[in-house]
């Protein structure tokens, strides 16, 4: 749980991604441990965000992987499910 420098030689043009949100890491990252995995984050508060998201994700309904041709051609009564978070 600390900021770490992301040191690379000037000739290294690879890029690194935040393990929490996918944004790019620029020269430093916030390191924390989650489920025995070392995580690299672009912000310090991403550590809290990770656990906050885990709680929500546990209640996501399964998604279906259908063909767009059959899934999208309906007149849109809203295809949305709402859940209480309380």
């Amino acid at each position, binding site marked *: 749980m600390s900021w770490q420098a992301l040191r690379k030689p000037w000739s290294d043009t690879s*890029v690194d991604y935040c393990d929490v949100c996918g944004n790019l890491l620029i020269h430093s990252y916030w390191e924390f441990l989650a489920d025995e995995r070392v995580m690299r984050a672009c912000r310090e508060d991403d550590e809290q965000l990770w656990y*906050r998201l885990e709680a929500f994700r546990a209640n996501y309904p399964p998604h279906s992987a259908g063909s767009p041709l059959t899934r999208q051609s309906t007149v849109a009564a*809203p295809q949305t499910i*709402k859940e209480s978070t309380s």
Partner: protein
Amino acid sequence: MNTSKVSTEVNKVTLTLIHRQLVNICDEMAVSMMRTAYSPIFSEGLDFSTLILDREGHLIANAGLNPSMLGASLYAATWIVREVGPENFAEGDVYVHNDPYRGGSHMPEHMMVMPVFEAGKLVAFIGNIAHMAEIGGMAPGSFAATATDVYQEGLRLPPVLLYKDGEPVQDIWRIILSNHRTPKDSWGDLHAMYGSLKIGKRRLLQMIEDRGLEVVTQVFSDIQDYTENGLREKIRALPDGVYYGEEWFEDDGITATPYGVRLSLIVDGDEILFDFTRSDKQADGPINAPYVVTMSASLNALLYMIGGDLPVNAGLNRPVRIVTKAGTICCVQLPGSCVGGQTEYQPRIMEMVMGKVLGPILPNMTTAASGNTSLNFLFGGLDPRTGDYYAHYHFEATGWGGRVNTDGNNATMPPHANCRNTPVEIFESRWPWIHEQYTLARGEVGYGEHRGGSGVVRIIEVAAETITVSAMSDRASQHPWGAFGGGEGSLTRIEICPAGSSEFVSFQEHFHLVSPTKFTNIRVHRGDRVRLSSPSGGGYGPPEKRDPALVSLDVRDGYTTHDQAAAIYRVILDENDRVDEMRTAAYRKESE
């Protein structure tokens, strides 16, 4: 009047005045770019943004011409500042950068930033982002719909010095101009960008002299707080919960595989989390989005729905988090191709949020789907009139979706882009095409209480021996959806009528392509005719609730027919297409 000695407490009046002045500076920069650019995509299309940023690269004000650049406006300059190091900027420097793997949206969009010093101290940056019409790569127009990695999409620049001590860095200019197919246009457009930076810097320094540095920098901070607090207040008014939506892309130009984006939007107190992590893995073709494009789509949707007149600046990012997973279509991983993410993915995701996700809780603010493709059509070759190489990035307007109190706009760029069309006169004087037709597709709009807006049909004939064309679009099989009982809009069609023939057939059929809407480097020849048909928007609300007088007008204007007026709208018209009010009232009552 020098007010540098006043307290740095800034009241709301002063905050508003100075903020408006900052926006006006951005507007003046934009006018300068429009008037001095060489390429119609700048001068006619207005495909650019102008920015004022604080000393860390945070967005303070913009001209707001092109909302699709919002994510990059919020993020790309901070990357440059951190990569270069604030201590390494000097008076007269200008950095250029177009790397989607460093905060850019896609490679044609180039960002320039110029530091502003006051009494030797770095106080701000002036910036702009603009879509260059040609940056090399595998296809003229640099929009290769079949690119499978970013290296095929053109010349990729990390932040590099374009000017040092106010003088051009010639080595960098030579690299750029040697890799673009139309270096004269690039020369002029890059100078238009540079000129607008100089205007912005001059005006900002004038403001600092008039108002005092402390006041101006306090406004930089306060205006972000104002936006943050305003957005938190608006989010707090939404019901807490998790809202879901998904959107599909028909193919990626490489295979016919559809790709899905899945969003879980979490409203939690005064914060919103956009969780895209369940989306499909990144595509082989260039429909992928860099992180900032997903950020743009999310924030723009939120601004359209609840933003009101909140100033656009880095304060937007504080109560909102965009969560993606690297290696998915929502967050492309190097070396994935991604040029289409900005023009196809972004508007679709934006409208998914507005329509399918937030629409049910904000029905008065939502909209049916617009045509929602930029219908990018790229071309290049040797102009027989001049012998010069030319290239152009053309985008086509579509119809917008109906809304709670109005029909959809006709022939307007998708809501994320806000660009203008290129007039026929400019088109024909710059490139070897002759227009046969450029009309509204009125008969294809989605029906509804508020009907969709009309897309366009453009037929152009090749007036050179050969032109190399490419395209990037979607919606060849998925109609723009209607809302709350409204009907669907129409589809994208890209067709060719070969010289000597009288029949149009799809490019896909004629050239045996994988995709009907995404292809690269097709050679068309003199006398061939190309027909571009952009989708019309979906309708909002049930058609039988449409004002009969508007239905009568629609019939006379060609948006619907006499028979459809009865069958769909439940409106009986006489032989002159005037409303028979008694019979219409009875018919509608009977149909209830």
